[in-house]
């Protein structure tokens, strides 16, 4: 090594480690360097466990109505009280986690996949496709998004599948725009030119060289959108376009409970509302941590 003498000794310590230990060490570093990220991941893990094992955890049947126990305040037996039909609110809040997560995760996954593809093609090749897709997305964004989602669900029918599709459509422009911007600034980067010289086809370059590098900013968008998607699904249910009673869902529970706040039965709306807030909060906190995890520059 001729330039050995010029390299600071610091740069040359790195014991070879397996890919798994490396990623685990990186995960641990991201978690310990930022306690808020750690908290967000902890909350997320809790939510996943509740969504997965909810039915096994609940003390009462969420759909069982007990007329004599209607509208009881929180107690040792019913932690969050009971609703107008005597159903256990705690059990319903827990059970609803799975449905709400399912709606938001699938909606965000759909808009991420479609939006990123659309934006990546538009950003890489430009031209008429870019202009056309850009204007279509502008048109979508010109509508009040919630009204658009209402319209889609009202027109297509009141099913969970349609809620997912409506939520995906209104979120799609954000992914497409981020992807387009991130791809177009990298389209002629040095490493992309080098990949062309190495004989990679254009499609391969876009898929394997550029897209992975756009992941960090996309991750921030993704986690912000997750919270938003949950709110959106709950909002649709709240106004009666979405999940139908008696299915347990946070939005619909808040909607039903809202009628009882005036008469003093606050627990009906408060607890599902708090669960909703916690979920949105978790996903909003997650953004920076996710970005740090997928950014190779943060590794050493």
């Amino acid at each position, binding site marked *: 090594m*001729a330039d050995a003498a*010029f390299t600071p000794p610091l740069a040359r310590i790195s014991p070879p480690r397996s890919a798994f230990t490396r990623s685990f060490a990186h995960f641990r570093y991201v978690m310990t360097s930022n306690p808020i990220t750690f908290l967000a991941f902890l909350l997320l893990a809790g939510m996943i466990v509740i969504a997965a094992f909810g039915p096994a955890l609940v003390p009462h049947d969420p759909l069982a109505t007990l007329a004599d126990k209607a509208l009881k305040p929180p107690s040792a037996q019913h932690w969050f009280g009971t609703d107008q039909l005597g159903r256990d609110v705690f059990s319903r809040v827990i059970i609803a986690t799975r449905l709400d997560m399912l709606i938001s995760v699938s909606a965000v996954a759909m808009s991420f996949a479609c939006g990123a593809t659309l934006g990546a093609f538009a950003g890489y090749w430009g031209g008429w496709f870019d202009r056309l897709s850009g204007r279509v997305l502008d048109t979508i964004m010109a509508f009040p998004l919630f009204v658009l989602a209402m319209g889609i669900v009202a027109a297509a029918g009141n099913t969970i599948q349609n809620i997912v599709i409506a939520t995906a459509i209104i979120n799609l422009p954000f992914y497409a725009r981020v992807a387009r911007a991130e791809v177009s600034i990298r389209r002629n980067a040095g490493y992309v030119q080098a990949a062309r*010289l190495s004989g990679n086809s254009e499609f391969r370059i876009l898929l394997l060289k550029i897209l992975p590098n756009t992941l960090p900013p996309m991750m921030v968008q993704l986690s912000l959108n997750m919270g938003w998607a949950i709110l959106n699904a709950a909002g649709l249910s709240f106004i009666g376009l979405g999940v139908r009673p008696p299915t347990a869902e946070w939005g619909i529970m808040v909607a039903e409970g809202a009628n009882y706040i005036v008469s003093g039965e606050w627990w009906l709306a408060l607890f599902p509302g708090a669960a909703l807030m916690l979920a949105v909060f978790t996903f909003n906190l997650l953004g920076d941590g996710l970005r740090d995890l997928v950014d190779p520059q943060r590794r050493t």
Partner: protein
Amino acid sequence: MIQPLHNPPLLAVRDLCVEFATRRGPVTAVRAVSLQVAKGETLGVVGESGSGKSVTSYAVMRILDRAGRIVSGAIEFGGINLNGADEPTMSDLRGREISMIFQNPRAALNPIRPVGKQIEDVLIRHAQATHDQARAKAIAALEHVRIRHAAQRYHAYPFELSGGMCQRVVIAIALACRPQLLIADEPTTGLDVTTQRAVMELVRDLTRSDGMSTLLITHDLGLAGEYCDRIVVMEQGQVVEQQDTRALFTTPAHPYTQRLIRSTPHAARTIRDLLPEDLRLPQPPAASPAGTGTPLLEVRNLVKVFDPPGGLLQRLKSRGKSAAGTFRAVDGISFGITRGESVGLVGESGCGKSTTSAMIMRLLDATSGSILFKGQELTAVPAGEFARSPLRRELQMVFQDPHESLNPRATAAQAIADPLLRLDGMSGAAQIRARVERLAAQVGLPLDLLDRLPHQLSGGQKARVGIARAIATHPELLILDEPTAALDVSVQAVVLNLLSDLRAEFGMSYLFVSHDLEVVRLMCKRVIVMRAGRMVEEGLTEQVLSAPEADYTKELLAAIPRPAHLLHRVSHTKVARA
């Protein structure tokens, strides 16, 4: 350097230590640095990247970022202890008593404010002007830095000005309040040599006429040698030597200084001269004598025209009125490269040399003209489909920025393996790994670095990865696009030697694109000088550099900073060798 008592230094830094908090714990960036700048003196701080020269100046200005901390030491400026000064005092001093010029002038200016207003801001901040006279003073300041039509330029936004003009505006801002000390941190890096000369002479003249002191921070020993009274050499956070400029060049005491002077291409006769004696290998015999006459590449009347930006409407409007607004980046150039030959392509930014190399590399379609490679017409295949051409493996390139040309998510081994997989159709992990390791050995990249990501490698190591990737398919023609522009001189010395050895070993032909005539002198037998898309001069390197015919070539040669002491050395060694 002991200062005479009757002349107390303007700036005195004593035993300065600066630490940065990092993921691996604190890192000492500057250790026990002491230096002094006398009134009216120009002090050069020279060192390679990571030597702590910029950190020292940031510490003086007290603008270290949050991770940085002055651990110990004293910084005294005109009797004030800057180390203990509070933030209001410092922001009062900054701009009024001590000013700074940064490396990238465009980044240092606010992009959404007219340059005149930005000068006014400084004047008003330091109560050097009232709102009524600020405008006149700002225009005067622009005139002071020799900007023509200053009253009109007052309204210009930074993006409307060239790099050299922006740097003049930055200097105008820095000097607006007549500070006593000017800190110039790599003020001309990224500017063309002719612009560099204009900017440096401006700084020298202005500081001299106002009796200002200057602290010039640079990696370029030649630049420091030409413009500084005294030079401090730094290495890894420490001052290794400080001497008068003349003494430093004639009798460098520290081995690091000697190595640095040796690595500077001005003084060298062959590229082996750039290396320290103990690292000099015998020059390998050339595989094929350079320039055997068989033409490898022939470029004829190559033209590239860029259309003006604008939609369909503008294009329809301008139809019939051809050439209005179009930009001829390359305007009919013709040259040839024979097998095993190394040809230099020299010119300043915007002269079309990068466009030319992109067209030859088939990354860009030519507007007209022909490129013949081994008798085959390259322009017959569109650039977009050239990836599948069998000629792809014969034409490769080493990029200017070793960092930017590596995918941040791919390890060194993956980067080198990419052309093997795609162009040579190699398969089998073990086989590819063995080939990658052989290539790494050929370019002198330690094997344990192969699994690192680009940001974990040093500049020189990244350059080696880029070279290994380019030679992986044994191309016949390699275009080197400023391969050492982003590297320190000592690393440049090693990389240039590596490139020259590889050429001899594999019998490759090089097109060496550079703005640095001194490097071209060492690397190429023939040279082509370009300006504004046209060829200005072509010929044997020795002839062109010693007896240039075109005025532009003369201008370029004159602009290279060449400290007299360094030239002296060359002629001495030449005499001694003769």
